[in-house]
């Protein structure tokens, strides 16, 4: 199964942490801790880079678990390696896999947090599993389209455009959808264009006639 998230072709280098180590081996150790935290708490906060890296691994882990099931040897090996706390293996196969049974999109969601100054000095992020019990990270916004000030500004903009347009166009735009007659508009359009052509035609015809004579 393919991943439903954007991922880079090259892996990101992460900074080492004290007690865990650095380099590619320390990176994987750190990511294992992050994945276990994500499965345990369903929402974690860390640097954006680390969150983005853990996202791919968490998605792959859930993908493999849902594809192969809990009776497969390979799936259990992977779950045993990536989940440091062993009681979470039950949670992965019994809770999280059934939750995303009919999901077509990704299993996780990633947010970027605003920078705090003075603070850690890095882009911070929030990574969470979808359909978790926590309150939403971003609250629902109100619809501002029908606010009185917005409607007034909208009308003002329309009026400004109306003055700039030609009167012929305005006349058509003012008519409502029920009263619109395409035939009349078309005839008018054709008549307007024909005026030039007729003059040209008559001139040509006259010249031809003269030649024939």
């Amino acid at each position, binding site marked *: *199964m*393919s*991943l439903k998230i954007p*991922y880079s*072709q090259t*892996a990101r280098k992460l900074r080492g942490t004290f007690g865990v180590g650095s380099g*590619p*081996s320390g990176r*994987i*150790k750190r990511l294992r801790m992050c994945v276990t935290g994500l499965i345990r708490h369903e929402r974690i906060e860390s640097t954006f880079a680390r969150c983005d890296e853990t996202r*791919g*691994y968490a998605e*792959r*882990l859930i993908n*493999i678990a849902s594809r192969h099931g809990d009776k497969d040897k390979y799936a259990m*090996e*992977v779950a045993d*390696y*990536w989940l440091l706390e062993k009681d979470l293996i039950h949670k992965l196969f019994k809770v999280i896999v059934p939750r995303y049974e009919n999901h077509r999109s990704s299993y996780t969601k990633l947010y970027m947090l605003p920078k705090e100054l003075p603070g850690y000095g890095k882009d911070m992020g929030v990574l969470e599993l979808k359909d978790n019990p926590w309150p939403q990270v971003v609250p629902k916004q109100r619809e501002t389209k029908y606010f009185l000030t917005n409607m007034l500004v909208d009308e003002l903009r*329309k009026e400004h*455009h109306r003055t700039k347009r030609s009167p012929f*166009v305005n006349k*058509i*735009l*003012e*008519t*409502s*959808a*029920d009263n*619109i007659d*395409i035939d009349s*508009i078309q005839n008018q*359009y054709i008549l307007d264009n024909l005026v030039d052509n007729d003059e040209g035609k008559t001139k040509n015809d006259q010249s031809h006639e003269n030649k024939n004579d």
Partner: protein
Amino acid sequence: MNIIQKHICRCLIQKCNSGNVPLSFVPARQATVLNWLLDKHRKSQLSQQPEKEDDIEQETIMVPRDYKYLYPEFLPPANYRHRDRIREKLERQDMFCRRTMIEVPEFYVGSILAVNVADTYAPSKNTRFVGLCISRENDGLRTNFILRNHIDGNGIEIKYDMYSPLLQSIEVLKLEKRLDDELFYLRDCPPEYSTIQFDMEPIHLPTGSAVPLNTIKVPLGPRPWDKKWDIKNFKGLQPSNRVLGKRAAIRLERSAKPWEEHDLMKQYRENINDEDVETVLKEVVLKTKKKSTKSQRRQ
């Protein structure tokens, strides 16, 4: 006049959708065509050349599991930066065209082949070479394979482009697999392991049998070698007697990467995902069905 035409269209759409709606002028968007909109237009009955849907057919097709190893050259590259779906499709069409002219048999790394190539300078206008297949590389029209043989005290390797028009025939003299995906280490092995006689007769397998796996373990010759073969964990090589020094042993320890065994994203980046494989192989199944079933030795 363009504005009016757009406006009339919008009015008509509004009329159709929700009856009496007061008009409001909507400014035109930028001229971009969305992918889903194009697809919708292609499949609609109103378009002059509607696209035929083969989805119903394709859903019923079951791809056999071994097709991934039978037709590896049809599979696209794993790196998404190197992918171009239109180019891949056109290349596949060309490959099928070439396959109608020349029969490309089933073979793997480790099987013995005989190849006929057109040659203007040869008196018989073609040359024949027999050898052991060492590697199969690349995809699409650029697929190639290397044959190795040992003739008159010299190791000879020739790389052939599989879909080159110069190829006249490819024969499989002995069909088998080896333990490794590449056999480049035969360059530094004793010559008896890569010598094949040119008048070798083809060995036919009984129908319906699986491809045999040759579990031979080859010893390495004396040093110097082309590469450090003993460090690289080949399954088809005997363990060498080379005694490592102190520094070399440390270097070997450091070169071990046990964490890459479960690096899920690394595996995903280096291999093609199953969905892409299926979409490509369904096309192959449709094409191969139409051909005669003589070449399909197994199910």
